[in-house]
């Protein structure tokens, strides 16, 4: 099976850009991705596109994928819009990798786009709930914040995790995001800020929740021949794994773990032939602070119940042994639903090439973890800088 490599990656600024469109945002991301190429690439070499998008606001839900690729000058390109809520981008990337590995195309475009801040608050309220379990969970008055809050409460009850642990996620990720010029909320916050913010869904306060964000991201996945032609720094997709889970929390066996993350991680690690101990950094899905802690445990960074101490000990700080969310994560960088998954790949691409805004020390393996909803679909990818020690 041919290996797949990331040869280009770019993102638009993440933030609130109500006068931008999903098309214009994607164009920026695509241009930046092309700018990141190490050599010239004929756009005709791109044989397929997989683009993540939820369609918040209900604008162009149908056929937005082809609209985007036509807009950026890729006429006739076979384009598939991928919808798996907040995990759409991670799944789109998975599809692009499979297309290249399958040998059918030399280069595949993966990306995502979402516009979330150009609608009034009433409209936004309707749209934010569409990826939860709508028939039962939502009918119990619960939004995503409420569902993750329930997991947080269960984790606190089971393991003694504290509000301070949750707040430290925000402090760490904002410190990283403050260095990222593309971050939506690129400012630092103190532990006090993150402890005393207004309550959203007990125990989650405002600083335990990511923002709603406009943005787009784009990466090019290519085979080894293209890497050679470009003379590209070889960022290899070492492993990829995706997995489904029950959409509603009430339908799952565990309240303190996301089973789909575990399954996706098992597949990605097996595909890569490496394990969590081999990783040098990770971008994980911190839509809510508790989600980052759950990710530590479900991805095997630590044992169940130990995520709080992993964080407290500074081991996921940029100078720790496993830095997490050097980009700022969803919390600070922002969370434009469909664009988040490939946005994580953008960070990994730059980290493995030594171009990170918060650069970790000479990394070889990096991981991305992208969750749809509260765990209905998860994509995990492992990347390797070939030739690194």
């Amino acid at each position, binding site marked *: 099976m041919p290996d797949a490599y990331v040869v280009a990656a770019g993102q638009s600024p993440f933030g609130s850009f109500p006068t931008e469109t999903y098309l214009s945002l994607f164009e920026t991301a695509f241009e930046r991705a092309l700018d990141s190429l190490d050599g010239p690439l004929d756009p005709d070499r791109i044989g397929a596109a997989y683009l993540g998008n939820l369609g918040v606001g209900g604008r162009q839900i149908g056929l937005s994928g082809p609209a985007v690729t036509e807009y950026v000058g890729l006429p006739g390109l076979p384009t598939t819009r991928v919808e798996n809520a907040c995990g759409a981008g991670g799944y789109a990337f998975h599809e692009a990798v499979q297309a290249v590995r399958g040998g059918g195309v030399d280069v595949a475009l993966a990306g995502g786009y979402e516009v979330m801040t150009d609608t009034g608050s*009433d409209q936004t309220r*309707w749209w934010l709930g569409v990826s939860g379990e709508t*028939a039962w969970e939502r*009918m119990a008055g619960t*939004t995503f914040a409420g569902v993750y809050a329930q997991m947080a409460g269960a984790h606190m009850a089971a393991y003694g995790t504290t509000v301070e642990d949750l707040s430290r996620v925000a402090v760490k990720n904002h410190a990283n995001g403050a260095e990222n010029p593309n971050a939506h909320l690129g400012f630092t916050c103190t532990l006090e800020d993150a402890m005393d913010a*207004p309550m959203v869904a007990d125990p989650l306060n405002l600083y335990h929740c990511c923002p709603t964000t406009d943005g787009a991201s784009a990466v090019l996945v290519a085979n080894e021949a293209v890497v050679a032609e470009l003379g590209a720094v070889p960022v290899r997709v070492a492993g990829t794994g995706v997995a489904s889970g029950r959409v509603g929390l009430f339908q799952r066996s565990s309240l303190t773990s996301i089973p789909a993350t575990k399954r996706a991680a098992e597949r990605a690690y097996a595909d890569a032939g490496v394990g969590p101990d081999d990783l040098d950094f990770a971008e994980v899905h911190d839509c809510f602070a508790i989600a980052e802690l759950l990710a530590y445990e479900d991805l095997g960074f630590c044992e169940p119940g130990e995520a709080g101490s992993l964080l407290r000990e500074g081991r996921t700080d940029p100078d720790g042994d496993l830095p997490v969310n050097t980009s700022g994560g969803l919390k600070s960088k922002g969370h434009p639903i469909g664009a988040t998954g490939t946005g994580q790949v953008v960070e990994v691409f730059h980290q493995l090439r030594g171009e990170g805004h918060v650069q970790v020390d000479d990394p070889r393996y990096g991981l991305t973890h992208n969750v749809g909803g509260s765990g209905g679909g998860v994509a995990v990818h492992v990347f390797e800088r070939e030739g690194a020690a």
Partner: protein
Amino acid sequence: MSGIDRPAAGDRGIAAAGVHVPRPRLPTAAQREVWDAVRAPGIESVAIPAADEDALTMAVAAAERALGAWDGDRADVASATLATTTPPSAEVGLGGRLALALALDDGVATAVLSTDLLAGASALDRALDASGPALVAVADAPVGDPGADGQRLGAGAAAFVVADDAAAPLVERAWKTESNPGVRHRPSGGDLTGLGVNRYERGAVGTGVGRAFDRLDVAADDLAGAALHQPHAGAPYRLARAIGLEPDVVARGLVADRLGDAGAAGVPLGLCAALAAAGPGDLTLAGFAGSEGGGAAFVLAGGLAVAGLDALDGGVEVAYPTALRLRGDLGDGSVSGGGAYVSLPSWQRSLPYRYRLVAGRCPSCGGLAFPPEGACPSCAERVAFEPAELSREGTVVAVTVIGEGGAPPEFADYQRRAGPFATGLVECGAPGGGTVRLPAMFTDVDPGAVEIGDPVRAVFRRLFVQEDVARYGTKFVPA
């Protein structure tokens, strides 16, 4: 004792009763801080429906208690009547949902009696004439101008199982019609009003109740208790003087002092209080008045325990602005918009699961599924689940509090009225073992007080209104 025929064994009457009173109470003293004049004679507090209560949910709550106290099988209930002057919509079917929520047989004859304060009397009258066990649920939450008649308006529900060989058999009954328009009136979508012509209104009511009573063989001296028409706590004493009843007899059936004017449910609630206080040889009068005057009088013998009566003196006091908010007097918080719409046809499909917590047992592996659709969560086989009605008692396994503005838009108006609410997961047991987790909202509780491990009990409540149609389902209250 005058020459009346005492009831004999096997006689028809009230076999079981239950009441429901909303938890929020507005003290009249709190209204006096706002209004120069508060027209609520003898009323210490009024009951305010919680933001998720209406006539149907209150009727279900009272009826659930009555059926629970009855030694018969609810599947044998032959007729079910809901009486209310405040149905959730001007035209709306309710009998089917009442029957489903109470797990009655789908062959039960249902009726909704409305528009007249005598609705409860009519429902009781028909149940006494019917054959087979008959359920009567009277629930009301009259609405009025907060600066006028609204000051004395309360809410509540009473339900009776009427059957042969009853604990409180009927001794006799009589009716008196009057035709005095405007005594009590509420235009469509408007507030309850009277004419303000006291002599006209008192005359119509007094004549109705008095003449109906006069037609009975029972004499005033025979009565140990009486639940009389009570738009406020002074009215039944005035009626009693005309009939010749002593104040202590009337006091047994007085609830308006604690609940306010509970509309058509006022006398039924008072009757429950009086029957609960009655000894085996006591006779109790229920004296109803109608919205155009007129009245009905029922005399029952003996007494019975009534589930839910404790709530008469319970509840939690709310501040005046909270009461206005709960009643929706401070505007509508409905949010228009798009995504995540659950259509009414697809909602209908799930009603047995939502109302009665019907889960599914996998015939292949014995695992449980809720809702009982799709592949078995345990063995992934696509099976036809055997219905398994979950226990209505459960345990909280996850909980959060959703603050203002954080609710899904369907619940925006509810949250505007109720404020922050608790929601989470409740684990309920299934017959034959095993448990299922249900996502559910908690109600009638301080949201911050719900904790993992708490025992809770299922109640039937209004979840939200969409397309002008109320959607009902299960919430949980502290057990």
